[in-house]
């Protein structure tokens, strides 16, 4: 075994040297307490129990309790901060001590002092047992310390092949999507032939000067337009223009029947005023 392991065992097996029994010293002196060295109240109790030099099973609990209470007393005298765990244990042990010293009353509801003491012994034994197992465990031959695995393992080299799957549906869908996109992308909007409202107003203004009497809207439209779309646009724009002219008071509008022809007449005065404004 390595020395490290041995020292591991020492940690478990030997009581804290500060607590070890040295008969040439007075109790007060040898119970110099190094709280940091202990792992809780059970650890302290285990260490104290070793001073009795008997098997845990035969240990005098009363004696142990006295030792523990003394230990706590000492710690307090030295103004050492004791963790709550230690104090809870002290309180319980004080209770146990009183129970052990007083004559037992028969009480069905309570555990006897012996049973309480047995419970403490059980806990101490259990902790002691697991500590012994821990020491044995750590002293076993260990892989990587005493035994070794293959130092240069030969790895399994994995070659990955990629496989692909595609259904006819997916293929056709992709082609259709491309076609769809292509069709959409190919939409071209041609410039439409349009006779603008401005053009219509300008034409109407010019012609209203000539037509003082009621004239049909049709008469204002040019009759040489071959482009049907242009003709439609012109008609619509001229109609809008008459409405616009009527609105600003340059023309009067009349329609004698539903869907009948629309008649327009210029308003002279307004035109003059308008001319003045423009001039």
């Amino acid at each position, binding site marked *: 075994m*390595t020395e*490290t392991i041995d020292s*591991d065992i020492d*940690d*478990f097996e030997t009581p804290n040297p500060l607590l070890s029994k040295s008969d040439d010293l007075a109790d007060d002196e040898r119970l110099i307490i190094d709280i940091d060295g202990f*792992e*809780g*109240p*059970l*650890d302290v109790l285990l260490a104290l129990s070793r001073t009795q030099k008997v098997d845990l099973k035969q240990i005098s609990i009363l004696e142990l309790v006295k030792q523990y209470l003394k230990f706590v007393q000492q710690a307090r005298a030295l103004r050492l901060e004791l963790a709550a*765990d230690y104090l*809870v*244990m002290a309180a*319980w042990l004080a*209770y146990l001590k009183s129970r052990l010293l007083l004559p037992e009353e028969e009480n069905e*509801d*309570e*555990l006897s002092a012996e049973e*309480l003491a047995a*419970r*403490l012994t*059980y*806990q101490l*034994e*259990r*902790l002691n*047992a*697991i*500590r*012994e*197992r*821990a020491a*044995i*465990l*750590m002293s*076993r*031959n*260990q*892989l*990587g*310390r*005493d*035994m*070794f*695995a*293959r*130092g240069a*393992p*030969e*790895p*399994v080299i994995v070659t990955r092949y990629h496989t692909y799957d595609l259904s006819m549906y997916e293929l056709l869908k992709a082609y259709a999507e491309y076609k769809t996109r292509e069709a959409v992308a190919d939409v071209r909007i041609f410039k439409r032939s349009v006779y603008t409202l401005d053009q219509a107003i300008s034409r109407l203004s010019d012609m209203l000067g000539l037509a003082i009497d009621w004239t049909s809207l049709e008469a204002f439209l040019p009759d040489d337009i071959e482009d049907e779309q242009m003709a439609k646009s012109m008609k619509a724009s001229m109609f809008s223009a008459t409405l616009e002219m009527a609105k600003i008071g340059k023309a009067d509008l009349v329609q004698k029947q539903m869907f009948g022809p629309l008649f327009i007449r210029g308003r002279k005065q307004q035109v003059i005023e308008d001319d003045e404004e423009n001039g």
Partner: protein
Amino acid sequence: MMKKMDNHEQLRICEALLFASDRPLSSIALAEQLPEGSDVETILDELQKKYKSAGVNLVELAGKWMFQTASDLAFLLRKEEEKERKLSRAAVETLAIIAYHQPVTRAEIEEIRGVGVSKGTIDVLMEAVWVRPLGRRRSPGRPMTYGTTEDFLVQFGLNSVKDLPGLSELKAAGFLDNVNTSRLNLLSDEEPNEEQPDLPMDDDESSSEEQVIS
């Protein structure tokens, strides 16, 4: 390809695979590389015999198989300079409690040791990959339970947690009985440990193999 493979060839294959690995291999993994109907167990048995007195032995760890250097040569191979995993006393003790009591909760570890488990202790053991959470117990608070890993078994040369040294003695002495974690248990008037019906094992997360001890 290997229509007719003799026993020697099968042994060579197992030998090569086990030699190439620095981790234990299961007999199932080995069987996969052998022709159907091969008797892996017999082959492993033969292989183990072949290496019985060699400098390298075939050992069964954590239910799997691996080659490792012979234990009697430890004196020669031991790596002193290797950073020894220096575990604290608390960590070693906690590891032992987890190993023997698994699945075990933190409160139970604390109860056994009679002192709180500092946060780092279990972390260190998990970092070493010796300890892992086994799942939550079906009891109030659903506390996490811990157990040991395959690495733990491999590290300490165990085939299963059942092979933990002195397990049966601990069990016989009643030290592995349920741990009463009510902190006032010493003061309480109830019989210790008898009734813990509220702590049935959780088996949705932890596999049954982990519960071999209890």
